[in-house]
C-alpha cells in the first residue's frame, strides 16, 4: 500500500516538474494560444459564407446511427435505408470546425514532441537514479492528457461565436481523441528523431497532409480513394468534430475508430519511449540476453517479411492466374476447425525463441526463410494461382476462416508453394532436438503434421502447393546451412554470425 502511494506521489511530482519544464518554453505557450486563433482568423478572412455539399464519411460507416427508429424497426440490416452521408453545410463554419481539429492535432503533436525531445537523456537518467520507468511514462501521459484536454476545450470555446455545436460533447470528444492520437505520434517522433528540425519537419508534414488537407469534408466528397482517407489517424477527429458541430447523428463507428487510433498510438509511443528510458537489466543471464536479442531480430524479420509478402501478393494478384485444383482437392472436405492449427503457424517463430538453445541454428532458419521466400516470390509472379473458395457457415471457426479469406489476395496469389508449410518445416527443423525433453520433439512432430494438412483442409491451399512446399522448406534449410557454415567461422558468436551471414563482404572492425 505504502509502495503504491509512494509511486503515485513520485509520478505526480514528476508530472508537475515536466509540466513546469514544458510550460516555461515561451514558444510552446505562444503557439498554444495563437495557432487556433490564427487558423480561425484566416478562415474568417478568406472563406465565403455559402452552402456547399459535403460528404460526411462517418455517417455511412457500419455502426453509424443515422436512421429513424421506424427505419431500424423495418430491417436493421437493409443498407438501402442508409443515407449517403451528404449534407449541405455553410463553408465558413465548416472550415472553422475542420481547421479547428487540424489546429488541435498540430499543437498536440508539437507539444508532445517537446515533451520528450531534448529530454530523453534526462528522463533516462531519472530512471537510472531511481524512478521507475512506468512512473516517468505515466507522468508524460498525464501531462499530455492535460494539454490535450486544455486544447480541445480552448478550441471549442473560441469557435463558439461562430459555431454553436449541436453536440458539444461529441465535438470535444473528437478534438480530444484527435489531439491524443497526434500527441502520441508527437511522442513517437520525439523518441526517434535525432534532431529537432527533422522532428518538426515530420510533424508539419504529417499533420498538414492528414488533418490539414485530406480530412477536409469538401475534399473528401470528391476523393477517388476515400478508403485511404478513412485509414488515416486524423479521420476520426475531423469527422466527430464536424458531425458533432452540425448534426444530431451519433457515429459510433468513427468514435470507436478514433478511440482505437488513440489507444494504438498511445501504446506504440509508450513502448517506444519506455524502451528508450528503461535501463538494461544487469542481472540478465547470457541466454536471456541472447533471447532478447533474437526476439528483436525476429520482430524486424517478421515485419520485413510481411511487407515483402504483401507487395508480391498484391502485384501477382493483378496478373493472369491459373487454377491448379486437382481431383484430390475436390475430394478433400472443408474442415473449418483446422483454422486453429493454421493460425498457430504465425506463433511458431515465437515458440522457437523458447525452444532453441543453439542460436546458430536460429540464424540458419532465418537465412532459410529468406531463401525460401525469395525463390517462392519468383514463382508467385510467374505462376499466380487462384481457385474458388467454399461458402462458409456461421460457426466461430468459420468466422475466423472468413477473415482469412477476406485478408487474402483476390482473385488469388502467393499460393504455390505454400509458405505457411515451408516456413513451418524450417522452424521445426531448427527446433528439432534442441529441447532437453523428447516430449517436446514429439509435440513438435504432431504440430508439424497439423500445420501441413491444415492449409488444404481449410481450403487456403491446394494439395500441390503443400506437396511442393515441404521439399522447398527443407531444401532452403539445407542450402542456408551450407552457406552459413561456409561463411561463419568456428567460435564466432551467434549475433556476429547472423550479421556476417547476411553481409559476408564486410569485416568487423
Amino acid at each position, binding site marked *: 500500500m505504502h509502495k503504491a502511494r509512494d509511486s503515485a506521489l*513520485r509520478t505526480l*511530482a*514528476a508530472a508537475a*516538474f*515536466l509540466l*513546469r*519544464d*514544458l*510550460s*516555461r*518554453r515561451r514558444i510552446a505557450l505562444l503557439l498554444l494560444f495563437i495557432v487556433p486563433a490564427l487558423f480561425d482568423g484566416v478562415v474568417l478572412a478568406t472563406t465565403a459564407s455559402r452552402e456547399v455539399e459535403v460528404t460526411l464519411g462517418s455517417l455511412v460507416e457500419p455502426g453509424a446511427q443515422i436512421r429513424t427508429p421506424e427505419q431500424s424497426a423495418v430491417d436493421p440490416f437493409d443498407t438501402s435505408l442508409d443515407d449517403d452521408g451528404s449534407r449541405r453545410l455553410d463553408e465558413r463554419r465548416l472550415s472553422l470546425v475542420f481547421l479547428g481539429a487540424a489546429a488541435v492535432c498540430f499543437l498536440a503533436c508539437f507539444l508532445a514532441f517537446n515533451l520528450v525531445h*531534448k*529530454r530523453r*537523456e*534526462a528522463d*533516462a*537518467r*531519472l530512471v*537510472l*537514479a*531511481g*524512478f521507475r520507468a512506468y512512473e516517468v511514462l505515466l507522468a508524460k501521459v498525464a501531462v499530455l492528457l492535460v494539454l490535450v484536454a486544455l486544447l480541445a476545450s480552448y478550441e471549442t470555446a473560441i469557435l463558439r461565436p461562430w459555431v454553436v455545436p449541436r453536440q458539444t460533447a461529441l465535438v470535444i470528444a473528437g478534438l480530444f481523441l484527435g489531439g491524443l492520437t497526434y500527441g502520441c505520434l508527437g511522442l513517437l517522433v520525439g523518441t526517434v528523431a535525432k534532431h529537432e528540425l527533422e522532428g518538426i519537419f515530420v510533424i508539419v508534414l504529417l499533420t498538414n497532409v492528414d488533418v490539414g488537407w485530406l480530412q477536409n469534408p469538401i475534399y473528401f466528397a470528391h476523393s477517388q480513394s476515400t478508403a485511404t482517407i478513412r485509414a488515416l489517424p486524423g479521420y476520426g477527429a475531423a469527422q466527430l468534430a464536424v458531425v458533432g458541430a452540425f448534426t444530431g447523428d451519433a457515429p459510433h463507428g468513427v468514435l470507436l475508430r478514433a478511440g482505437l487510433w488513440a489507444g494504438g498510438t498511445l501504446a506504440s509511443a509508450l513502448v517506444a519511449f519506455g524502451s528508450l528510458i528503461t*535501463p*538494461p537489466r*544487469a542481472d540478465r543471464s*547470457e541466454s536471456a*540476453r541472447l533471447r532478447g536479442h533474437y526476439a528483436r531480430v525476429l520482430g524486424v524479420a517478421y515485419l520485413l517479411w510481411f511487407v515483402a509478402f504483401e507487395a508480391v501478393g498484391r502485384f501477382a494478384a493483378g496478373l493472369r492466374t491459373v487454377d491448379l485444383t486437382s481431383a484430390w482437392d475436390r475430394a478433400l472436405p472443408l474442415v473449418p476447425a483446422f483454422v486453429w492449427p493454421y493460425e498457430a503457424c504465425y506463433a511458431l517463430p515465437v515458440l522457437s525463441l523458447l525452444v532453441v538453445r543453439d542460436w546458430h541454428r536460429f540464424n540458419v532458419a532465418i537465412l532459410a526463410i529468406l531463401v525460401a521466400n525469395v525463390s517462392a516470390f519468383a514463382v508467385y509472379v510467374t505462376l499466380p494461382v487462384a481457385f474458388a473458395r467454399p461458402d462458409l457457415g456461421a460457426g466461430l471457426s468459420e468466422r475466423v476462416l472468413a477473415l482469412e479469406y477476406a485478408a487474402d489476395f483476390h482473385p488469388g496469389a502467393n499460393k504455390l508453394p505454400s509458405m505457411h508449410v515451408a516456413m513451418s518445416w524450417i522452424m521445426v527443423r531448427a527446433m528439432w532436438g534442441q529441447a532437453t525433453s523428447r516430449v517436446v520433439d514429439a509435440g513438435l512432430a504432431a504440430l508439424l503434421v497439423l500445420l501441413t494438412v491444415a492449409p488444404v483442409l481449410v481450403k487456403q491451399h491446394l494439395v500441390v502447393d503443400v506437396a511442393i512446399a515441404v521439399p522447398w522448406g527443407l531444401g532452403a534449410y539445407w542450402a542456408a546451412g551450407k552457406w552459413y557454415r561456409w561463411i561463419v567461422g568456428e567460435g564466432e*558468436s551467434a*549475433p*556476429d554470425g547472423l*550479421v556476417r551471414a547476411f553481409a559476408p563482404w*564486410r*569485416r*568487423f*572492425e
Partner: protein
Amino acid sequence: MSAILAAEDVHKRYGWRRVLRGTSFEGHPGQLVAILGENGSGKSTLLRILAGAEGLDRGRVSCLGTMGYCPQEQAVYPYLTVEEHLELFARAYRLAAPVARASAERLLERFDLGPWRREVVQELSGGTRQKLNLAISLLHDPAVVLLDEPYAGFDLASYRAFVAWADEAKRGGKCVVLIAHLVLESERFDAIYNLVGGKLHAQGS
C-alpha cells in the same frame, strides 16, 4: 580489499564496430581511478555499461554500493531551474526531505551554484550546466561515483573545487572512476588506465 565495482570480460559491439573486446576492471573503496583513451575508443561506453545505462553483449558487471553517474552529455531538463533539478532527483534517489535539502545546499555551495539556483538550465553557461550535471550525480552521497569528463568546460576555480571534492571523496572511502582525455595531476590517482583496442591497459599511478 574486495572490489566494490567490477567488470569482467565485457564485450560490446555497435553494428560492425567492436568497441569493447573483453574489458575487465576492478574499483575499490577509497580509490580514484582515471580511464583515458582516444576519441571513440569506447571510454563512455564502458562507463555507461558500468553505470547500468547500457547493455553489454557478453560479460558481467557488479556494483556493491550506491552509485552516482554523471554522463558526458548534460542530461538535464532545459526549462527547470538548478534547485528544481536537485529536488526532482532527490525524489528519484528517495532521499528524505531534510536530507535532500541539506545535500542540495552543500553541493550548491561547494560548486558555487548558489547564485544560479533559481535560473533555468537554458539560461546557464556551459560550465555551470556541467556543474549541475555533476551535482545531480552526487546528491545522494553514493559509494561509487562514475564521472564522464566531469570537468569539461570548468574554469580554474571550478576545477579546483572538483579536485577538492575528489580528494575528500577518496578519503571518505568512495570509489571514484572518471573519464578524461587528459589528466593533469596524475599523482592524485590510484590507478590510470588506457583504453586501447577495446581493452584496458594499466599505466600505474
